[in-house]
């Protein structure tokens, strides 16, 4: 009985740590997906409250981070379904204009990249940011977004190609046409 109680206390503490450790990361990801600080904050709140509500479903704490990001992705899907609309690059531009940091040159680069990311289709944007910002493996991204690993790879390719064209002014895409398919990933 005492052991069971200790286990519950320990799980509760671990969950609290999980929430505390991931709140900032989730917010950053939500902001990268939406480009809107308020909406991102709302999504994170919904995510963590859902996680708290369903915490007993989480059996394996090793998979907890991916679980949280998956809830975040689901919250975003629900939001988009409810709203039937989503922020486009144009909306982001309006937000940028009131950002004071925009005066600085470095910030202009940051805004340029964020705008390019916002212009990606949401499916590509999610994959690129999960891989680049959180360093999730392709397999983890596949689990978070509930898509096959091959789809993760193709979305990543298209997303990065679009970003490269916009941000790095690369030569034609033909140069990057795949000649052979990758055999395996970890």
């Amino acid at each position: 009985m005492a052991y069971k109680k200790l286990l519950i206390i320990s799980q509760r503490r671990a969950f609290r740590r999980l929430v505390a450790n991931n709140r900032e990361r989730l917010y950053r990801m939500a902001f990268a997906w939406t480009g809107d600080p308020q909406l991102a904050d709302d999504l994170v709140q919904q995510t963590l409250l859902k996680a708290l509500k369903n915490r007993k479903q989480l059996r394996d704490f090793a998979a907890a981070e991916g679980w949280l990001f998956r809830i975040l992705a689901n919250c975003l899907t629900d939001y988009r379904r409810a709203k039937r609309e989503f922020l486009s690059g144009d909306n982001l531009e309006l937000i940028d204009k009131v950002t004071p940091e925009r005066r600085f040159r470095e910030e202009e680069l940051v805004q340029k990249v964020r705008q390019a990311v916002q212009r990606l289709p949401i499916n590509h944007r999610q994959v690129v940011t999960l891989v680049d910002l959180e360093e999730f493996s392709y397999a983890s991204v596949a689990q978070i977004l509930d898509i096959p690993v091959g789809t993760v790879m193709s979305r990543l390719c298209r997303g990065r190609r679009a970003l490269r064209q916009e941000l790095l002014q690369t030569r034609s895409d033909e140069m990057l046409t795949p000649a052979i398919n990758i055999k395996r990933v970890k």
Partner: protein
Amino acid sequence: MIKDEKISEEQLNAFIDGELESEEINGVFDEAEQSAELDGRLCKQRKLKELVKHAYRDVPEPRRRTPVGRMPASMLGMAAVASLLLFLGAAAGMFFTQSLEQRSLQTGSESAATGQPVITSENYILHVSSGDPEQMQRALKMAKALLSSASSNTPRKVEVVANEKGLDLLRSDITQFTEEINYLASNRVVFYACSKSIQRLEEKGVVVRLVPEAIPGYTALDRVVLRMQDGWEYIKI
């Protein structure tokens, strides 16, 4: 147009994302040694990844109101008076605590008779986000049951936090539960109205009026996390 025939774009991505096995990594390095063009592509992919990371290293904070900031000016005076009353009340409370506990315990026996589930002796935060009056009533009943079932040696603390449509529970012009809220508040149940939900409504032009027992100081999440950090049990209604 130059085409690289050996390394695909997927393979380049997998390389910079650390997804390749060591044999394949060696293969990419070997190819890059031979091809300045491939080397250039690798650099660009890495640069792109770093650019994206850099762009989101510092993200803007969401606009949040502080508890004091949210108070209308007229309420600041009230807050000062409340502080004074709180000080006086603290002294008086020493005398009244006992009777409150007794009252709570009496309610407890009634509640136990109604067959409420057995509840352990801990503090609880209840979260209401539904606009369904039945769910609101359920939250209030549960708060009452929690108070009732607490041990007399360790008085239980109970908070109710309302957000989204559940905020209606604490809106004076909408709620159907004024008396229940008043009763529970007088038994030390604390009610919190989510500041974010209030803000959302105000942005839509809704004037949010809360029952006097409601404290509009935190987002629902902040309050829940704070209490969980204190070891409280969280219950989503």
